[in-house]
C-alpha cells in the first residue's frame, strides 16, 4: 500500500541527503519525492510517497523523527488529502492527429505550453491516477520526453 509522508525539515543544505539516505540504507522504497520551502523560509516541506504496509511506514516515521533536522512527520492517507503532481510531456504530432490531441487536452484540462511542426509540449497536473491516465492517453501518439515532479499533498480541512 502507498503512503504519503509529509515531512517538515530545517531548510539547510544536506538535509535532503540525510532524509533520502535514510530511505536507501534501510531499503525503504521511495515512489516519489518533492521538496519545497514553506511560508517560513527556515523550514522546507518534503512530500515522500512510500510503498509498504502499516508497520513498515510506522518504522519509517520513527526513523525519520530520529533525524535532528526533521521537525515533524505526518502520514497522510490517500483518501484524506488533496494530492497533485505536475507533468510535462513532449508528444509527437502530425497534421492528421493535431486536432485529436487538442481535444483530448481539453477533456483533461491540460495546457499546451509549446508547439512545433512535429510536437506538442503539454502541461498537466492532477492526482497520480489522473497523471498516469493522461500519459497513457498520450502514449499512442508517441512520447518524446517526459518530466514529472512527484506528488505534493495537503490534508483536507474540515
Amino acid at each position, binding site marked *: 500500500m502507498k503512503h504519503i509522508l509529509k515531512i517538515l525539515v*530545517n531548510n539547510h543544505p*544536506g538535509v535532503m*541527503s*540525510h532524509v533520502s*539516505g*535514510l530511505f536507501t*540504507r534501510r531499503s525503504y522504497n521511495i515512489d516519489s519525492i518533492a521538496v519545497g520551502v514553506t511560508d517560513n523560509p527556515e523550514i522546507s516541506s518534503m512530500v515522500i510517497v512510500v510503498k509498504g504496509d502499516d*508497520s513498515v511506514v*510506522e*518504522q519509517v516515521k*520513527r*526513523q525519520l*523523527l*530520529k533525524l*535532528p*533536522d526533521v*521537525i515533524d512527520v505526518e502520514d497522510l492517507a490517500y483518501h484524506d488529502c488533496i494530492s497533485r503532481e505536475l507533468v510535462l510531456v513532449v508528444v509527437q504530432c502530425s497534421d492528421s492527429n493535431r486536432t485529436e490531441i487538442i481535444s483530448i487536452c481539453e477533456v483533461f484540462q491540460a495546457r499546451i505550453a509549446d508547439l512545433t511542426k512535429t510536437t506538442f509540449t503539454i502541461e498537466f497536473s492532477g492526482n497520480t491516477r489522473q497523471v498516469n491516465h493522461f500519459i497513457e492517453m498520450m502514449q499512442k501518439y508517441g512520447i518524446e520526453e517526459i518530466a514529472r515532479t512527484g506528488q505534493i499533498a495537503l490534508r483536507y480541512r474540515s
Partner: protein
Amino acid sequence: MPKSEAKITGARLMVELLEEYGVDIVFGYPGGAILPFYDELYKSTKIKHILVRHEQGAIHMAEGYARSTGKLGVCIATSGPGATNLVTGLTDARLDSVPILAITGQVATNAIGTDAFQEADIYGITIPITKYNALIKSADDIARHFEEATLIALGGRPGPVLLDFPKDVQTELTNVRKSSKLKINPRHYQKPPISGDLDSFAAALNKAKRPLLYVGGGAINAHASKEIRELAEKGNIPVTTTLMGIGAFPGTHKLAVGMLGMHGTAYANKAVLECDYILNLGARFDDRVAKPGEFAENAIRAHIDIDTAEFNKRVSVDHILHGDLKEVLKVLIPKVEKVDRSPWLEYLDTIKKNHPLEFDDSSDSIKPQAFLQKLFEKSKGKAIVSTDVGQHQMWAAQYYLFDEANKWLTSGGLGTMGYGLPAAIGAKFGNPNSTVICVSGDGSIQMNIQELATIAMYKKGVKILIFNNNFLGMVRQWQELFYEERFSESEWNYNPDFVKLGEAYSIKGMRVATKSEVEKAIDFFLEGDEARILEVMIPAEEKVFPMIPAGKSQKDMIEFSDTLRTGKK
C-alpha cells in the same frame, strides 16, 4: 572593549567551548587542516591531549573512555585520511549507542569540492553513521553547533556526532561565543515523557508465572542498574542480559541467568523458550539474540525503550512503554507485586545444574574458559575488561562475571576487531585507579597493535591478554561446523613474537602454554600498575559453546554435551 565583544579565532573558541563543557581529555592525531585548533590546544592547561598512532585508535579510545566513565568521549582528526580513519569507530559508536564527539579538520571553504589535497567529504561519508553531523561554514556558527552536537551525542539514546571544521573557519574571527537559538527540536536532547499504559503493563507482569527480564545496553546508558535489581528482587524475576547489557545486573546474583543469544548460556536460552512473559529493558531484539516469529513465542512480550524506532522493529511486542528506562522503572516498580515464583526459579536452578557452561579440561593444554575463570577469581571480578571480537570475546562474556555496569567494554553491534586495545587505553585514562584488562586474540590484537606505543608513551598500566591459537578462532569454528573443515584463510602461518613486540615498547610480557604455569602467569599479569602482555597458547580446535547457528532460534541451540555425542569437539 568588553570581553564578550572581543573577537577570537574559531580555533580558540573550539578549545574554550570544550573546556566549558568539562572535557578534560581528548584523543587525536594532528595534521594540516586541523593545525589552528592544535595550536590553541597547545596553550590549554585544562585539556590533556592523548597522541595516538592511528585515528581509529583515537576514536576507540574515546569510546572506551565514554563507556567506562559515562561521559562524552572526544576525538580529533585532520581532514581527508585522518577523518576517514574515524569511520569504523563512528559506526561502532552508532551501533552501540556511545556518546562521541568527533572533531575533524577540513580544507578551506574555497577549496571544498575541488578535490583539494587531503580533502574528503566527511560530512557526506558520515551521514549514515552518525547521530548528527555538520560542516561548519562560519566561525559565528561554532558555538551553536557545539552545543547542539554535544546535547545530541549525550541526549536520549546516545550516539556519535561529527563536526567538520574548514581550516579558514578555525582562523576566522568571531565574537559569537554562545549559541543564541538552537535549531534542533528539544526532543533530541530532553528526556521524553513516559508514555504507555503502566497499569496494564504491570498487571500482565504480575500475572506471569514464569517472567524473565531481558536487559540490554540501554540499561547501562540509563544508569538503571539499581532499579533493575529492585524490580527483579521484588518480583522474584530472573534476569538475562545481552552482550551489551552485561554488568547492568550483577552477574553473581542468584537471579542472574547470564547472557542470552548466539553464545549465551543454555539456561538463559532455555529460560527464553519457556518463559510466559519477557520484559525487554533497553535491548533491541538484535539478530544475534532474537529470531522474528520464534523469539519467546509462547510469552507475552513487553518492551521499555527510549527510542520509539526500536518498538516492533524486528520482533512484535504486546506491551510498550516509551521513556527513559530509569524513570520508567521508578514508576513501574511500585505497581509490581511481590509474587512467590519459587517453582520457576527452582526449575531454572535445575536447568543451570544440568546444562552448565562446559568445556573439556582434561588435557594439559590451557583452556581459555578455565583461564578466564581463574582471572576472574584473581582479579576479584573488579577489573574493567575490554575485548576484541571473536571467540575470546564470547569466552570473556561467559566466564568473567561483572557485578557493576560500565566495566565491560566490547564492540557488540558492529563486531569491530581492533576495538579492544584502544578501548582499554581510553578506559585506563578515565579510570586511572582501576585494573584494566584487554582480552584479545592473535588476530584481533594485530588490527590496532600500533597503540602499544601510546601505552608506552603515557606509561599506562593496561594489561593485555592474548589468546593465541594461530587461527582466526571464530572463523575457524564456523568453518569447522558449517563448511566441512575447509579452513579457508583462517589459519595464520605467521604471528609476531608478541612478548618481544612488547619488549620493543618496554612493556613486560610472558608466554604460557601449559596449565602448570597459569597461576604464576596471572600473578605476574596483574601485579602492580604496569602494562603487561600475557600471551596464552590455546588449542586451535577449542570452540565456544553453547551456540545458536546464525539465523536459527533458541530451539536450535548446540551445547557442548551435544558435540560429545557426535564425537566432534
